[in-house]
């Protein structure tokens, strides 16, 4: 349902995404992992249209969308949960949820709250501003993504700022969405809980797809420090990698 063909994205002379080819299957749960700076978030942003590739194709449901704006991709059924969600002045969770769901009907919004597991109604009228905690804003981000009823949901590090007790319920929620709504799910994460939940783990390193398969097969690479970009610090000017 989503096909990446010879995908490149560079900044200056550095290839952030360096020739990725991969086809995501409908209804599967993908975990994308890799070292910091390997290109995971950039790949997710290329799919959503936040960045535009320098070369290559992105085909979604058979349509070539690599030059489409964010809005068109959203309307086509792609939803995106930002790693660092935007904060506003004068916009509440209710406003965002209504925009995401395309309705301000109270019953529909309450049904959405139940679906994403937010039990407090007062949460609905919270301003989405700088006063929200990291965990609260991530819950809002997750809820607005699910409220889109997307065909493809992309979550960029959904556990950032989330407490340990919330991570497993969050994994279960995304799995339930995958199962009940057939949502193709891509989670960019370092967290083992999401990788264990994934049908397929993709590992990105230096802009290339270094591994595709199950978590078991990825473990040797995940435990191999040589895959880490920080190995570059070893050498004449070795400052001593903390790993």
């Amino acid at each position: 349902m989503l096909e990446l063909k010879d995908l490149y994205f560079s900044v200056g002379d550095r290839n952030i995404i360096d020739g990725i080819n991969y086809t995501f299957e409908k209804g599967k749960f993908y975990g994308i992992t890799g070292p910091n700076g390997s290109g995971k978030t950039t790949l997710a942003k290329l799919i959503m249209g936040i960045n535009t590739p320098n070369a290559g194709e992105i085909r979604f449901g058979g349509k070539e969308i690599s030059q489409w704006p964010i809005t068109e991709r959203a309307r086509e059924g792609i939803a995106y949960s930002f790693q660092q969600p935007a904060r506003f002045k004068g916009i509440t969770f209710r406003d965002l949820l209504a925009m995401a769901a395309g309705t301000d009907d109270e019953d529909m919004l309450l049904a959405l709250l139940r679906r994403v597991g937010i039990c407090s109604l007062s949460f609905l009228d919270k301003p989405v501003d700088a006063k929200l905690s990291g965990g609260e804003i991530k819950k809002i981000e997750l809820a607005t993504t699910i409220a889109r009823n997307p065909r493809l949901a992309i979550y960029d590090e959904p556990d950032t700022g989330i407490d340990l007790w919330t991570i497993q319920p969050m994994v279960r929620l995304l799995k339930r969405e995958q199962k009940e709504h057939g949502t193709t799910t891509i989670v960019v994460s370092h967290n083992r809980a999401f990788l264990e939940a994934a049908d397929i783990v993709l590992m990105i390193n230096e802009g290339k797809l270094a591994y595709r398969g199950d978590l078991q097969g990825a473990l040797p690479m995940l435990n191999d420090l040589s895959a880490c970009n920080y190995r570059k610090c070893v050498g004449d000017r070795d400052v001593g990698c903390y790993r």
Partner: protein
Amino acid sequence: MLDAIDKELLAAVADLEGLPKGAFNIRKNGRLLKREVSANIDIESHADGQGITVTIKPGTVNESVHIPVILSQAGLYDVVYNNFIIGADSDVTIIAGCGIHCGGLEPEGHAGIHEFRIGPKAKVKYVEKHYARGPGRGRRSLNPTTKVFLDAGATAEMELTQIGGVDEANRVNEAVLGPDSLLLITERVLTEGSQKAVSTNNITLEGAGSRANMISRSVIKGDSQQDFYATLDALAPCFGHIECDAIIMDSGRNETVPSLKARHPDAALTHEASIGKIASDQLMKLMSLGLTYDEAVNRIIQGFLK
């Protein structure tokens, strides 16, 4: 009595579909159009006809008074001096505002000087909207001044809004806070085209335990310009905060100068100010929810000025 233009202006500045309930005073083109008083709220004209005194009895609660002004006469510059005397322990809402309809080439304008004397432990919510429209090209100016004097334990919450169409505005807010009083001002101004607006605010925290919070939200479109000056002058142990944010669109210009003066060692004064374009992460978020770029901009501005 109210024609279609009057009704539209009243709806825009005072959210009124027709004549309000309770006490009100509607001024049209420099003259009294209609007035009602209530058992607890009295309204009297000044001898020179240039304004009113609204007197609210002590202990009056859950009552409101509307005092909108509408202008549709070419070449008129209407000046009014309105006084509000709010009795102790009352809790009232005052809805003011001025709507201008400009149909010709001649300028039209209004200057409303509103002075509030808020008695001990009284609470006032003051809502003021300014708006101008019409096919005419005459300059529309609105120059409101509010002066607020808060007695011990009094609270004033002021929502001041200029929602569009005003070519020139010179806005002045002054306040003197007594002991344990609280002042909350939220000012929202939108300018576009070649409009100009200046907002000057001087708040004196005179009484111990007084608190003031001034929030300014500016949206500056086209080639318009807005300048914002706010001074908190603390003479006692008190708390004061200024938050001023300006969104610049197109070629708009802005000068923002918050000023804090602590003349007492136990004064706590803070400010935060920002000027800039709409943040790209906000736009991307709303676009990822299916809004177009323009829809996202409008929604962000709408929220910002809400």
